[in-house]
């Protein structure tokens, strides 16, 4: 099995890692804060949120993770690095699992117990992560292409429904709202930090342009969906809906015979979330192995821990929504600061020798 990650696979992994949670709650949260101008914060947040990945490519490129960390940071800082990133990756998996459980039980599988969805994705995480990281990314690329086609189809189908007066590029009443909204989006984009350990497995041809391609693709993806939500539903209705993008798909029909496009989108979505989950769990497993090289396969236990956390951390769906709006930015921002700080320390220590 090939263990190197190509440029296209990295771009797909970046997109999938951010797209699935970003599409669920972000349009609604941004429309609540910024109304017609809800699409504006997507641009600056995307540009600044992928700096950790660029830093990681510089820091870890061409060296096995354990050696790179041990030689540059020393044992205590390596443990801190891996512990922070590993715990964050499990927490991201836990958050995603909870998101997908809420979404699936409310929309698609109302009678299915949450633990079943947890078990399903824990299995996916164990299988995909345990077999090869590359496979996950390759599968992700395929799903991404399908998702882009689905999005294109929805956009074309809804051309007659677009109300362009619902967009207002400028005229944000308070700058504080723009900052808060940008920080909110950045919080989701910063989840891409779980891909940092992957930088040591990149193929020789991978360059910064592949990261840029991934970032631009996800930016395009979210921007189009945000604009569609705003122009089809208007800012107030978008802000009222929990999953505006689901309603977007629900509103799309092919003639009068295919009315459940929403189910196609939901299926792709659940698939994307499964891949995202496997990426997070695999990252956590990599970090565990660096701390304790002799440890056996960890994916199943990490996936089970994430499933357990998803079912117990947030009691109600509204708790999760509130957590995302108020605390997630700070938590992910803090983790990124620690990880980036340690990588910078590693780069500085490495340069003189």
């Amino acid at each position, binding site marked *: 099995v090939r263990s190197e990650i190509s440029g296209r696979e990295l771009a797909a992994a970046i997109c999938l890692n951010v797209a699935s949670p970003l599409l669920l709650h972000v349009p609604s949260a941004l429309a609540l804060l910024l109304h017609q101008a809800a699409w504006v914060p997507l641009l600056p947040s995307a540009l600044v949120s992928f700096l950790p990945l660029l830093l990681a490519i510089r820091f870890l490129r061409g060296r096995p993770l354990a050696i790179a960390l041990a030689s540059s940071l020393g044992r205590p800082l390596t443990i801190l690095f891996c512990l922070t990133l590993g715990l964050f990756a499990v927490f991201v998996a836990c958050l995603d699992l909870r998101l997908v459980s809420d979404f699936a039980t*409310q*929309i698609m*599988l*109302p*009678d*299915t117990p949450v633990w*079943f969805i947890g078990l*399903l994705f824990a*299995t996916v995480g164990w*299988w995909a992560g345990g077999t090869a990281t590359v496979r996950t990314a390759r599968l992700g690329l395929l799903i991404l292409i399908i998702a882009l086609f689905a999005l294109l189809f929805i956009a074309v189908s809804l051309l007659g429904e677009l109300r362009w*007066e619902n967009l*207002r590029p400028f*005229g944000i*009443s308070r700058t504080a709202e723009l900052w808060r909204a940008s920080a909110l989006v950045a919080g989701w984009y910063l989840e891409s930090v779980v891909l940092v350990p992957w930088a040591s497995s990149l193929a020789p041809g991978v360059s910064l342009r592949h990261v840029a391609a991934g970032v631009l693709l996800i930016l395009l993806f979210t921007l189009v969906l945000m604009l569609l939500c705003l122009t*089809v*539903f*208007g*800012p*107030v*209705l978008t802000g*009222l*809906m929990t999953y505006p993008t689901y*309603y977007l798909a*629900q*509103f799309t*029909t092919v003639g009068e015979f295919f*009315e*459940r496009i929403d189910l196609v989108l939901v299926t792709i979505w659940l698939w994307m979330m499964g891949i995202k989950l496997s990426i997070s769990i695999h990252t956590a497993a990599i970090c565990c192995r660096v701390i304790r090289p002799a440890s056996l396969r960890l994916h199943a236990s990490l996936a089970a821990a994430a499933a357990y956390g998803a079912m117990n951390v947030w009691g109600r769906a509204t708790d999760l929504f509130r957590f995302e709006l108020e605390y997630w930015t700070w938590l992910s921002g803090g983790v990124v600061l620690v990880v980036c700080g340690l990588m910078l320390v590693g780069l500085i220590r490495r340069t003189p020798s």
Partner: protein
Amino acid sequence: VKHALACLLALLLLSGCWSRKEMNDLGFVVGMAIDEGEQEEIRLTLAVARPFDRRNPPPETSWFLSAEGKNLAQAMRRIGLRSSRRLHLHHSGVLLISAEVARQGIEHKLDFTLRETEMRLNQKIFVTVGKADEILRLRDPLRITTSQELEELLRQNPGYDQTLKEFARAAVETPMTAVAPMLTVSPGPTRSPQLAGFALFRNRRMVGRWTVEQGRGALWMLRKKTVAVITTDCPPDVPGTTFSARVRSTRVVRTVAVRGDQVAIDFHVHGSLEMVELNCTLDPIDPNQMRKLEKAMADDLLARIQETWSEVKRTKTDPFGVGKDIQVRYPDFFRRQGERVTDRVAEADVTFHVSIMLKEPGLVTQPVPRRR
């Protein structure tokens, strides 16, 4: 290990057998009607499609279930107590609300329709002149169910088409006023649903209505695709009775200006039409004579539009979304006024400019000669 894993994954494919929903266990709701209750606040009626053999359809193709409740959810649950099938709302095509209920306010009904995951936002919404369930229960001779008939009615009259999404959007936004088509029962021996103008909402409460005549002017101003024929008296200096033209395309350009607290709106309405009947004695090939007809038709349309606007003024609503223009062009004024912006629009100084072009004379060039 690989084989064991493959078997385990294959087991997941059987998950569809668990908590399954068979077609035979589902009752497909095709239409809903909301009326004022006699004992409680709401009376909900559901039209459920009856399964039948197409070669031998039963006299009743829908099964109607009604229940009263304090709100829609309670009424729905009470209906569920009487149904041997699980009621499935995904395929509900029409939502009928009686004018009495609409006058009291539709916040709670909107909340249910948006919150319930089975409700689809592309179902059509109507306000009924009488009881909503009476119209839902009408037996349609041409279509299988009344809700299907209503959906087709809108297809033939696209200007009246209003989805739940569009209605909800207008109802929740501050400067907008929601508009919904109205339905009544056609007079005569064949009782069938008939479009009867528009209901005007402000703050999610019905505050007025446009009659069919007023609605004709409204269709132009709402910038909706219209299938309409305008019939006008011949110009005074031309002998004859009337002439009619079919609308080919319309264009409405509006300009909003704010001076102090006063709003001024300019509407430029242009229509391109095709002659379908000419009972005026003039030569339609002569451009000068044609202009006379265009002028007469433009005056007639202007009168209709002014009548439409008079209802807007009376009810203090903003069905054309002028408030949105103010929000974009004058954000400070909009913020200052808040909800009162709708009042400012209704009190605005309005000017209408109507121009008509009769582009096609039809398939004959001259009026059919009259008997002397």
